């Protein structure tokens, strides 16, 4: 249980910390330091197990489907990193207490810091690769927020985004790599993966997996060519830099190398990719550090270089190199963290980090200076300090690499060269800051020692440097050993951690590095001049430029494709249909089925001809809108006739009524629109459209021909058989509509209702001014309501109502029904509006069309729901024949109520639609909400 707790504690702290923000910085600092301290305490009991190469594993199932489990695993390697994270973490918390200003959002700061700590612990303690990846990405996110802590600074924001992009992106690569490994091994449990090293390396996917994993590691550990993000992360508050960018996060990459060492290392590919990346990073970092005038910049690049060193060591592939790498991880963490803190103190006390202005601080802050100088010497690799020891091991290993011929010289030379640079920039750090004359107009003058407690963390770390430097075996021996054990998977080579190994080649290299380094520093102005020839590139700006460029390109590209042209979208739609249907239809060809063609009868042929002419004419002269409208209604009429001709009386009637209402609708719209369509599309475009249209038409023709001549049988037999006995009606179409498929009808009247309601809503606050005339030079007539029309309209309404009643009542057995009846009534009402005008008619229509719609839907629903009472499903109909004295025998069908609902809904919707549009007319003075419109 204790391991999950170790990871969980900091997160709990993160939640708790902000609550103490009110209590001031001390309170919150103390509060924040409690979780890591408990965590430390929780780790120690396990030491016994680890000392003799054991492993502590606490595992809980989570998502077996993914293969991700909550398993936490503690071994030497994990312990080593966990201690670094926790101990340095505590020191940072203490340090930050003094570094931050009271005005700053300390709650946020500590909360994020603890989040980061937790994520970091998660990485090192995960016993499951996917779990580790989650924490891995979490560190990217938290560090993003920490770097951009000062959100008002543009550099901070950009640096943070760059860091997130690089490390987060690397994380995604790592994810891919891990998934492949898991796929090979069949498990993501660390134990299984580490045990399956041979299997992995033998697998064909190994190169891919390795590359992806290394991408993750290198981005995180700022390896060339991904190193550029790290220096820019220095925009973060110094405690963050000290913690994330020296001791912990950037070590996650190398941790990964160590963690997966047994599983991935020991191949050619590993050797070349890792060691050469490391070498390049080592050199570039060291070289650049030399020329940074920014205190933190110098440290950042030196960090890059040291990470390169560690990577190189892991890359070498020898066991001793690995040990050296682990050892250097500890050493670098200690001296670099202390150096950052020192830099932070200097920044804090002088108000600047520019070494060209910071000079001779020895006089103002001797104590801090001493600490910084010791740490810097360790960085330079001065004997009796920890940096020296690991560097000696590194030099030794660089000689051990037995590369063929001339290549054998490369590693030692690179190592020495890097050593020289290291000495040089360390020397600069010491001399240029603490000596080298007087300060140059510092923002804060005179600088003096920081608060006592601010130095304690530095002192502790520097003390550690010395301790390790002098008594390596006692101080870190056991820890390093168990870490090595864990990394190398058992057999650790015999090595001795001694201060001196006598006069040997590595020592000579160190000496050379010293002499060279000091020489170089003394000649620094030359080098600066030389370096100044190449102009500094600001990666941050480059990154920003790239992102903006991409965003801009993306925007242009999008605007190019998604150009808000309906014509294009429709074209794409039609083209897609043609594309997907082409193959089967070409395959089908002109196909006449087994039923063959029935003889032509001429009346039908002529009507068809009329329809075709009218349809094509509509398209041809569509720019003359009214004429097109007239032609369109010819089409509608013939379609209705066709329905009648081919035994669909109900359809014929519906089509007729709908068509007229549609025409009225279109004319209502045309009143406000130009009566001519301008000719604006290019000839090419029109040709394209014509071709597309013809292809579509041809396709439909082929399909129809094939269908009509194919014999077929359908489920309709059932309807024909059960219409009368089961549905109580002889008009099968109507029975289908109100009974067999009544649910479709319910949906359909809902559509009608919704359409009407939204149309009403849409036009509510719309103001349209009609053109003064018909566009052919005639202004509209003033006479609204011709006498003859008014007179004929009077008797029409009652007659129409009776006809509706007739059509409605017979609908269940004869052609007719709710729809048609409803449309007839609506049309009769429309005539009233046309003849006598909106106001006149509205005054006489006493119901709100909204309510008619509602009633319609309600009737239909209730009629359907009635059956529920008898335990039958929704829309189950019943009918019976009742005999009354005078009246005689007649049928009552619940379906009739349903159809009544349809009738009402149709009336309500149609009228609401037409009235809503008519209301726009300037002549109709209806605006009061009391009325329908």
């Amino acid at each position: 249980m204790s391991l999950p707790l170790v990871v969980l504690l900091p997160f709990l702290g993160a939640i708790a910390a902000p609550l103490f923000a009110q209590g001031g910085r001390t309170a919150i600092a103390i509060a924040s330091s409690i979780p890591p301290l408990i965590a430390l305490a929780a780790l120690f009991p396990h030491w016994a197990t680890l000392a003799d190469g054991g492993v502590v594993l606490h595992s809980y199932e989570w998502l077996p489907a993914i293969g991700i489990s909550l398993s936490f695993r503690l071994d030497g390697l994990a312990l080593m990193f966990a201690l670094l994270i926790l101990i340095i973490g505590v020191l940072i918390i203490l340090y930050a207490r003094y570094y931050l200003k009271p005005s700053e959002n300390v709650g946020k700061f500590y909360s994020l810091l603890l989040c980061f700590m937790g994520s970091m612990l998660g990485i090192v303690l995960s016993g499951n690769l996917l779990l580790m990846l989650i924490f891995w990405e979490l560190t990217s996110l938290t560090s993003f927020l920490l770097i951009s802590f000062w959100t008002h600074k543009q550099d901070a924001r950009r640096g943070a985004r760059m860091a997130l992009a690089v490390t987060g992106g690397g994380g995604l690569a790592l994810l891919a790599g891990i998934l492949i490994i898991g796929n090979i091994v069949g498990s993501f449990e660390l134990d299984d993966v580490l045990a399956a090293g041979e299997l992995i390396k033998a697998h064909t996917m190994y190169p891919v997996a390795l590359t992806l994993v290394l991408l993750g590691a290198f981005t995180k550990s700022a390896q060339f060519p991904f190193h550029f993000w790290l220096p820019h992360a220095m925009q973060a508050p110094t405690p963050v830099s000290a913690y994330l960018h020296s001791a912990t996060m950037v070590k996650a990459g190398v941790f990964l190398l160590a963690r997966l060492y047994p599983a991935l290392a020991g191949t050619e590919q590993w050797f070349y990719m890792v060691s050469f990346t490391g070498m390049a990073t080592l050199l570039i970092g060291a070289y650049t550090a030399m020329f940074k005038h920014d205190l933190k910049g110098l440290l950042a690049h030196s960090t890059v270089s040291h990470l390169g060193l560690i990577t190189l060591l892991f890359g070498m592939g020898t066991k001793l190199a690995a040990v050296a790498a682990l050892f250097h991880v500890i050493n670098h963490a200690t001296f670099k963290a202390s150096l950052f803190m020192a830099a932070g103190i200097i920044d804090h006390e002088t108000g600047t980090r520019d070494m060209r202005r910071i000079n001779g601080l020895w006089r103002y802050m001797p104590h801090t200076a001493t600490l910084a100088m010791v740490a810097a010497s360790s960085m330079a690799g001065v004997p009796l300090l920890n940096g020296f020891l690991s560097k000696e091991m590194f030099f030794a290993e660089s000689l051990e690499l037995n590369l063929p011929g001339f290549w054998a010289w490369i590693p030692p030379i690179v190592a020495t060269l890097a050593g020289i640079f290291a000495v040089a920039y360390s020397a600069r750090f010491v001399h240029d800051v603490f000596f080298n004359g007087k300060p140059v107009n510092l923002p804060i003058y005179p600088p003096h020692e920081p608060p006592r407690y601010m130095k304690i963390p530095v002192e502790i770390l520097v003390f550690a440097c010395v301790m390790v430097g002098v008594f390596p075996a006692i101080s870190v021996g056991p820890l390093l050993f168990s870490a090595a054990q864990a990394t190398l998977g058992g057999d650790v080579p015999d090595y001795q951690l001694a201060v001196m190994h006598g006069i040997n080649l590595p020592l000579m290299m160190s000496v050379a590095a010293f002499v060279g380094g000091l020489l170089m520093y003394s000649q620094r102005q030359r080098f600066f001049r030389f370096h100044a020839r190449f102009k500094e590139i600001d990666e941050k700006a480059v990154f920003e430029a790239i992102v903006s460029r991409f965003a801009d390109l993306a925007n242009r590209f999008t605007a190019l494709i998604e150009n808000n042209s309906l014509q294009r979208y429709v074209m794409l739609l039609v083209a897609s249909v043609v594309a997907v249907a082409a193959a089967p239809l070409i395959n089908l060809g002109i196909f006449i089925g087994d039923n063959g063609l029935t003889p032509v009868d001429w009346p039908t042929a002529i009507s068809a001809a009329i329809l075709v002419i009218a349809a094509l004419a509509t398209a041809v002269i569509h720019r003359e809108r009214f004429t097109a409208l007239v032609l369109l209604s010819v089409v509608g009429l013939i379609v209705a006739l066709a329905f009648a001709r081919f035994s669909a009386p109900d359809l014929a009637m519906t089509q007729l009524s709908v068509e007229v209402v549609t025409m009225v609708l279109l004319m209502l719209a045309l009143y406000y629109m130009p009566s001519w369509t301008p000719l604006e599309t290019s000839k090419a475009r029109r040709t394209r459209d014509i071709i597309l249209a013809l292809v579509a038409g041809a396709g439909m023709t082929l399909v129809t021909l094939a269908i009509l001549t194919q014999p077929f049988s359908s489920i309709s037999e059932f309807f024909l058989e059960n219409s009368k006995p089961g549905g109580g009606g002889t008009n099968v179409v109507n029975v289908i509509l109100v009974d067999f498929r009544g649910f479709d009808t319910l949906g359909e009247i809902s559509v009608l209702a919704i359409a009407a309601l939204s149309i009403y809503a849409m036009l509510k606050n719309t103001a349209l001014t009609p053109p003064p005339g018909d566009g052919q030079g005639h202004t509209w007539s003033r006479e609204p309501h011709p006498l003859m029309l008014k007179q004929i309209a009077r008797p029409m309404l009652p007659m129409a109502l009776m006809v509706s009643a007739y059509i409605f009542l017979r609908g269940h057995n004869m052609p007719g029904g709710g729809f048609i009846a409803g449309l007839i009534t609506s049309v009769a009402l429309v005539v009233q509006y046309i003849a006598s005008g909106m106001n006149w008619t509205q005054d006489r229509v006493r119901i709100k069309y909204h309510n008619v719609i509602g009633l319609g839907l309600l009737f239909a629903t209730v009629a359907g729901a009635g059956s529920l009472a008898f335990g039958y499903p929704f829309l189950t109909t019943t009918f019976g024949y009742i005999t009354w004295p005078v009246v005689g025998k007649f049928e009552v069908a619940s379906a009739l109520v349903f159809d009544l609902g349809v009738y009402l809904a149709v009336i309500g919707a149609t009228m609401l639609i037409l009235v809503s549009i008519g209301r726009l007319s300037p002549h109709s003075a209806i605006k009061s909400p009391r009325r329908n419109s």
Partner: protein
Amino acid sequence: MNHWLIAPIALPLLGGILQTFMGYAPISLRRTLAIATTALILASSLVLLSLANDGSYRIYAFGNWQPPFGIVLVLDRLAALMLVLTSTLAMFAHIFSIGGSDEGNRQFHTLFLFQLMGLNIAFLTGDLFNLFVAFEVLLIASYGLLMHGGGTIRTVPGLHYVVLNLAGSAIFLIAVGMIYSVTGTLNMADLAVKIPQVTGEGLDLVKAGAMMLLVVFGLKAAILPLCFWLPQAYAKATAPVAALFAVMTKVGIYAIIRVYILIFGENAGELAHLGMDWLFPLALITLAMGVIGALGADNLKTLISWQVVISVGTLLAPIALGSEPGLSAALFYLLSTTWTVAGLFLVAELIAVQRGSARDRIITAPKMQHRTFLSVLFMLGAVAAAGLPPLSGFFGKVLILKSVEPGPQMAWLWSVLLIGSFLSVVAYSRAGSIVFWRTVDGHLEKPEPMKGVVSVSAGALIALTIVIVFLAGPINAYTEATAAQLFDTAAYTEILQTPMAAEND
């Protein structure tokens, strides 16, 4: 026959009817009733989920007519999942709307409820033509909702959306006609039985029809090249509507899953896996297009709209590969992405309200009120959407990545998906840091107060992404079961034998 099955349809219908009568009732009353209705819908969907979880098929035969003759509703795990997904989302979106965005149009709640009715019919129906009707119901309601909020900005996108979908409906009808003209039936189960027996020229007709159907579903799902109507329409819609629309594209995806696994699945003989070879590359291109759009977006709502396109691509790629794990993964991701995107739409609105004239555009503006709260919500949403750990999106994507068999398809899917995630991270971090952090001095003209219901509903919707993480185990178990059930098409066709309620006396 279990009457719970019509609850998700009957409730919004009755609620909607009630609303039409209440045109002039006080808004508070209308709101109460509307929200109550949605809550009931959510409750009933949960009931159906618990029913469906036993892995059996339940049917509801309207009019007590034996399928394939009558229309049936079919409840299975997939349907239940979609119902819960939708009604949960709707619940929060609806609550958000009573924060004030429902004003200005008395029909808002009517339309909202009818929209839900359409969606629920689409998820439950077992009849191809009834699916068409369902589409029409939810479309016409969506047209109305899209135009809700007045102003002129919505008109053109609305027009495009409407015209395209009308054309789509026409194509749908043609497709139905082609399929009926050969098989003589409309019931999906019956089709699943009949399609394998189709021979000769019938094959060509059905194939053409089915492919056209795929185009229609593709249009609804917004697959490239049919996705360009979406960004403008969604970006311009009022927040709760946009949030609800997050589920609209998923209807298309649902239809693809339903029809192309059940009817044109592996048992479809000559027509097995129809169109899936088209779908996979298109899905990847769609994903890429979405990422490009997101990268180029110059306001948050457009960015999120493109995120919708991204998730469509992400979902359809594994579906097209037609493996059971892939489908399960897609369903898991579906749940996550839909809620996340919807939540982001709401958050974007909250942000827009706080930034005065700058609205949600990705530009420098005066420091906004409630910055921390909003930025946290946005960050959660962004992380989930981009598929970074530890939020639900990540698990969805991992499931999808893992579901692919090694091979060229794996290479394609992995690279597009991962690079896509990377670029979305870039896009979101850029947008977020500009909107929240790059502030100029000066203050907004009267910063509007943030209403409780509004922020709570938005926050809750975003928070669901965390809930999913904690319930990942059971959810994944459910999606796996769902996938298994879907691939067992024989079981589905057995609904044709379900006995009807006893004939009365």
